[in-house]
C-alpha cells in the first residue's frame, strides 16, 4: 500500500514537471498583438 502511494506521488510529480516544462519551452503563448489603437484613430483625432 505504502509503495503504491509512493509511486502515485512520484508519478504525479513527474506529470506536473513535464506539463510545466512543455508549457515553458514548447507551448509559448501566442504573441499578443498591440491593440491599443481602436477603430477611431487612437483618439488622435
Amino acid at each position, binding site marked *: 500500500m505504502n509503495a503504491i502511494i509512493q509511486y502515485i506521488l*512520484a508519478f504525479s510529480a*513527474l506529470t*506536473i514537471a513535464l506539463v510545466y516544462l512543455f508549457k515553458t519551452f514548447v507551448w509559448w503563448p501566442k504573441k499578443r498583438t498591440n491593440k*491599443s*489603437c481602436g477603430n477611431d484613430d487612437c483618439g*488622435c*483625432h
Partner: protein
Amino acid sequence: MSKQINVALIGNPNTGKTSVFNALTGLNQKVGNYPGITVEKKEGICKLPRGVKAHIIDLPGTYSLNASSLDENVVIELLLNKNDKDFPDVAVVISDVENLKRNLLLFTQIKDLEIPTILVINMSDRMAYKGISLDIEYLERKLQTKIALISTRKNKGIDDLKELITNYKDLSTTPCLNASSIDKNYFDNLRKAFPNQLLYKLWLVITQDVNFGKTNRKTIDDVSSFKTKSKTDLKRLQQKETIKRYQFINDTLKKGQTIDLASAKDLRIKLDRILTHKVWGYLIFGVILLTIFQAIYDWSSVPMDFIDSAFASLSEWTKSTLPDGAFTDLLAEGIIAGLGGIVIFIPQIAFLFLFIAILEESGYMSRVVFLMDRIMRRFGLSGKSVVPLISGTACAIPAIMATRNIESWKERLITILVTPFTTCSARLPVYLIIISLVIPEGRFLGLSYQALTLMLLYLIGFGAAVGSAYILNKVLKIRSKTFFVVEMPNYKLPLFKNVALTVIEKTKAFVFGAGKIILAISIVLWFLASYGPGEQFNNAERIVTEQYANVNLNEEELSQKIASHKLEHSFIGVTGRAIEPVIRPLGYDWKIGIAIVSSFAAREVFVGTLATIYSVGSDEEETIKNRMAGEVNPILGGPLFNFASGISLLLFYAFAMQCMSTLAIVKKETNSWKWPMYQLVIMSGFAYLVALIAFQILK
C-alpha cells in the same frame, strides 16, 4: 466608491523618476543611475487624500517628444492616444534641480498637448550645495502649472505632490508655446485642413516616426487641402520649435532661478577628471573589477560550504526518516539534490549584484559607459551598448531588452547579437563549481588563482562580445547614422534601501526563475536515471553480482557497482552514451553530455543535473563538489574533472548559446528567427571548437 485616476510619470533619464514612483506607490523598483534603465512601462497604485486612488505609470526616460529610440516612442504613443486605457488624467513631469533648463523642454511639450501637467523639481536637497535658489511662485505663474519641490532621498515633499495630483482638475491646460509661431502659413493650413484637432498633436503625428494606428502621416497627406513639407523642411521646423521653446525657458529661468557659483562646492569635476581619465580611468575600473571578484570568492566561501553540507544532510535525513519508496528517493536524490545545486550559489550571486548595485547607485556606472564608448566605437558599438553588456552580467534577457534605447538599428542589432557572450549569472554556478575542482587554491599578489580565473572568464566573455561585434560591423551591410549622448549623474552615496532591494530582487529572480525549471528538470532526470529499458537495467543486481563473484568486494562496494551499472543502463545512461562520441573529444563523459543537453534550457541546470545524476543510487551524505571530484574518467583513468576537461568545459560555457529564453527574446526583438538561429549555430559551433582545441592541447 473611490475614484481612480491615471497618472503618468514622465521625465528625462536620471531625474529620479523611478524613486518618485517608489515613494508614491511603495512598489519595489529598480533604481539605476545610467540612462535607459527604464525600458518597460511600470505601474503601481497610490492612495491619495480624500479617498482618491491613482494608477501610476512610470514611463521610460525621454529628453523630449522628438523620439529617437523605441522606448521614447512608448511615451509619445501613450500621450497621443486618448483611447489608451492608460492615457493620463494628469502628467507629472519629473525634473532635476540641477538640470532644470534641459528638463523644461519636455515639460513645455507635454503641456502643449493640453494634458493637465504638474512639474516636480526633484533633488531639492542639493540646492544649497549647488548654490541654487528658485522663485517657485514666479515659476508657477510663468509656466502656468503647480510645482512640487521634493527630495526623494530625504523623503520631502511627497505629501505635497499627492495633494497636487488629487487637485489636478485645477491645473491650467494653456500651452506654453503657440504652435502657429513656428511657421504661421504652414500651421494655418494645417488648422484649416483639420479644424477640430489640437495643432501641436497634429504636428507630432507629422514629425514622429511612431505607430499611431490609422492616423499616420499618409492620412494627413491624403487630405487634399493640406500638404506635408519635405523631410528637410520638417527638420528645420523642428529645430525652430526647439529654439523657440528654449527662448521661453531661458526667459522663465532668468527670474525664476538664481545660481550662485561662488557658494557652490563641487567635488564632481575633480572626481570626473580622474575616473574618466584615459589612463587612470581604465586602471581604476580594472582595480574595482579585481576587488569585486576577490570579494565574491573570499566572502562567500563560508555560507556556500554551509549550504552545501546542509543540503547533503537534508537529503540523508529525508532518506532515513521517510518510508522507503519511489517518492522518498525522488525527494532525496532528485529534488533536494537538484535544488541544492542552485541554492549553493546564492551568496556569490548576491555579492555580485551588491557590487553592481553600488556602482549604479553611486553614479560610477555612467562614467564606465562614457569611458567604454572610446573603445566600443572602434568595434561598431556605442557607449550605450555598455549598458546591455553590463546588464548581461545578470541576465541576457533584460539586457537585450535594454538595447531599445540604442538609436542606430545596426548598433542595436550588433549589441543584441553579442550580448549573450557576456557572463550572465546563470554561467556563474557552472564556472564556480568547475573552478573549485580544477584550479588550485594558491594566491598571487594576494589574489586567489580561483578569483583571477573567474575574472578572466568575465573578460573572455566581454572580449568575445567585442570581437564578434567588430566582425559583425564589417559583415553587416546596414547603413545607419550614429551618435552618443550620455548623462553623467552626480555622485551619490548609495541608498541602502535601493541597494538592498536590487540585491534581493535580482537574487530572488535568479533563484525562483531558474529554480522552477531546475526543479522540473531534476524530477524528469531522476526518473530517466532511476528507470531503464531491457535486461541490463532490470537484472542489474544479478549481472553485477555474477560479474564480481570472484572479486572480494564488501557490501558497500558491491552496491556502488550495482548503482553505477543501473545508471549506465537507465534511460538517461542510454541517451548519454548515444551522444558520448560527439563529446568525448572534448574530455567529457556521457554524464556531462546529459548535463550539457539539459542545460540548454538554462545554463545553471548543468550543476543541478550533475548533482541529480551523481545522487541517484547513492546512500552517502556527500556534497556536490565531493561527488564531482570523486568521478573517474572511464577511458583515461584519473579524475574526470581535471585541468584539461575543466578548462574545456569553462570555455564551452563561455561561448555556447545555452539558453532557450535568450533565443526567444532575440526573436522577439529582431522580429525574425534568422538572427537567433545564426546565434545558436555560430556560438555553439565556436564553443565546441574552442573546447576541443583546449582539451587536446592541455590533456
